[in-house]
Structures are given as structure tokens and as C-alpha cells.
């Protein structure tokens, strides 16, 4: 490891070891969705030295994004999110590789998006797309880190094929077309939980948030963890 990297990552090498840092450098992560959660996760992972980030989102930056999507600035409005995010992440950490793909995530594009990827971060804003990611994760045996927010509430769980249930075991979906209220601070909590989980899974450290659902209630100032068990008859992960 270079002197630059030993210095740059000094505070976390203490936790993860040089070996853990090397695991991050070698890792290839898909951040699906570059919104309130995706911008936080991508910035956390870039700063931590995850070697390859693929960002997927087909949106352009809008004024109403700026209350929570700190990677973007007012002069980014109208630009592709993935492009603006790539530039900003490159400034944050020039040593990592960031690939932006300005595409809708659907059944046609998913295979290319998860190609050569080690882990998926679900930072989407709807369950229809989450279920596409979920299926790709379980058919390719990729860990997936789920996060979702609404207002002051948020949730997160870590899905490991073969060890946990999948999103379709736990969640029914969400109403279409609803404009979901979100405060940036909630994205910060959940996005950072997702980044922590990603780093844990990639380095094999700590106890991942598996078979459990973390629920954050910002109004109450309280986090709760509940059991989340696999459905043995699930058509995605239950083998039947």
C-alpha cells in the first residue's frame, strides 16, 4: 500500500487492517439510484476507498433534489445525475473508478448493470425497481443492501442469498406515483447505515444486518431492530 493510501485511510485501517482496505479497493459496487440515499452511500464509499462504483440513475438534477442530495449544486440543475455525481466523486477521491450509467433500471438493462459487480446497494425510490434488483441479486448470489426513507422514517436490511430472505419476503410494494416526502437528515441516517453494511460485508467484519430490519424513527429519535424472516415459499429466494 502506498504512503499516500496509508495516510489517507489511516483512521479506518486501524479498524479494518490493510487487508480490509485492500478488500475495499478491489470491490465493485453498484449503487442503484443516485438520489437522497444513493448520493450519501456513493460519497461514503468513495471516501472510504471502494475501488469501483457503478452509479445507475436516469434522472437529471432538479431544484427539489437539493434539500438532501449534497453531491449536487444549483448549477447542476438539468444535468444527468450520474454525470454530476461522477465528477463530484472523482474530486472526492481521484484514486477510485466511478462509472455513471444514465439508464432506467428495468428487466432489459439489469443484466448489464450487475455485470462484474460484487454487491448491490438498493437506493431506489420505488419497490417495482427494487424487486428487479432483488431478483438479479438472488439469481446471481450477490449481497444487496436495502434502504428506504419517507419523511423522518427510514428502514434498512442486508440481504445475503442463501442466508436471508429477500425483499419480496418482507415487503408488499408501494403505491405508484406518490411524491414521497423526505428530509435530508433521514437519508443521511439510512444511507450511512447502508454504507456501513456495505463496508462490513465487503471486508467480512462485524455483524451484518441480516434477517433483521432496522427501522429509524426520526420523530421519536429512536432506532429499532425487528426480526425479518425468510418465506420458505418465496418464488425469488425460497426455491419453490
Amino acid at each position: 500500500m502506498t504512503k499516500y493510501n496509508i495516510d489517507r485511510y489511516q483512521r479506518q485501517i486501524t479498524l479494518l487492517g490493510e487487508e480490509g482496505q485492500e478488500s475495499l479497493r478491489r470491490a465493485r459496487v453498484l449503487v442503484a439510484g443516485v438520489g437522497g440515499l444513493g448520493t450519501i452511500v456513493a460519497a461514503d464509499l468513495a471516501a472510504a476507498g471502494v475501488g469501483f462504483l457503478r452509479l445507475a440513475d436516469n434522472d437529471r438534477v432538479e431544484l427539489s433534489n437539493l434539500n438532501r442530495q449534497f453531491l449536487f449544486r444549483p448549477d447542476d440543475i438539468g444535468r444527468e445525475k450520474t454525470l454530476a455525481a461522477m465528477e463530484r466523486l472523482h474530486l472526492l477521491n481521484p484514486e477510485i473508478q466511478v462509472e455513471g450509467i444514465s439508464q432506467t433500471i428495468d428487466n432489459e438493462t439489469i443484466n448489464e448493470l450487475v455485470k462484474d459487480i460484487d454487491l448491490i446497494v438498493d437506493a431506489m425510490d420505488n419497490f417495482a425497481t427494487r424487486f428487479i434488483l432483488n431478483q438479479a441479486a438472488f439469481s446471481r448470489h450477490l449481497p444487496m443492501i436495502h434502504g428506504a426513507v419517507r419523511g423522518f422514517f427510514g428502514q434498512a436490511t442486508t440481504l445475503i442469498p442463501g442466508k436471508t430472505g429477500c425483499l419480496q419476503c418482507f415487503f408488499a410494494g408501494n403505491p405508484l406515483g406518490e411524491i414521497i416526502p423526505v428530509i435530508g437528515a433521514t437519508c443521511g441516517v439510512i444511507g450511512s447505515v447502508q454504507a456501513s453494511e456495505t463496508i462490513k460485508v465487503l471486508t467480512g467484519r462485524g455483524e451484518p444486518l441480516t434477517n433483521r430490519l432496522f427501522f429509524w424513527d426520526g420523530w421519536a429519535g429512536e432506532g429499532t431492530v425487528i426480526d425479518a424472516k425468510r418465506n420458505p415459499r418465496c418464488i425469488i429466494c425460497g426455491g419453490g
Partner: protein
Amino acid sequence: MKMKITVRAFADYREIIGKEMELLLPAEKTIGGLLADLGDRYPNLRREMFTPAGELKEFINIFINGRNIAFLKNMATPLSDGDIIALFPPVAGG
């Protein structure tokens, strides 16, 4: 013979019924029966969770001991002594 059931509410539901409650219920109670009782006690909860026709609204998540009732027997799922129920609305934003 009564069963002790714990109900944990999250997000909007917590604002209506509080964080957690323990209930003593008759042995034959189903999750549907329990939610109907809660709806009588908390009309706002009923409005949040059920349609005017009394159907559970789409996308609401109800876990019994960590399992979504959609994969059990839905509202007909029987309860057992010591069960922990979690109620939470869809949280879907990013």
C-alpha cells in the same frame, strides 16, 4: 386460557397507538380479529390501515414474529401466546 401478544407499531402507526403494547387475548384470536379490535379502539388506525369497505389497504406490512402475514394466512393467521406483531406502512423513498 389467554394469550399474551405484543404489538409494536412503526412510523405513522406509532403516532396513533404508541410504540408498543401488550394485550391479553382469547386463544382463538386471529391477526384480523386483533386488528379489528385495535381499529375499534383507535379509529385513526382503522382509517390508516383499512379501506372504508374494511379491507386491509395494499402495501401495508404486518409481521408476526418476523414473518409477513402475506406468506402465512393473511388476516386469518392465528395468533399464539408470546407472538410479537410489527405493523408498518410502506417506506419506499430514496
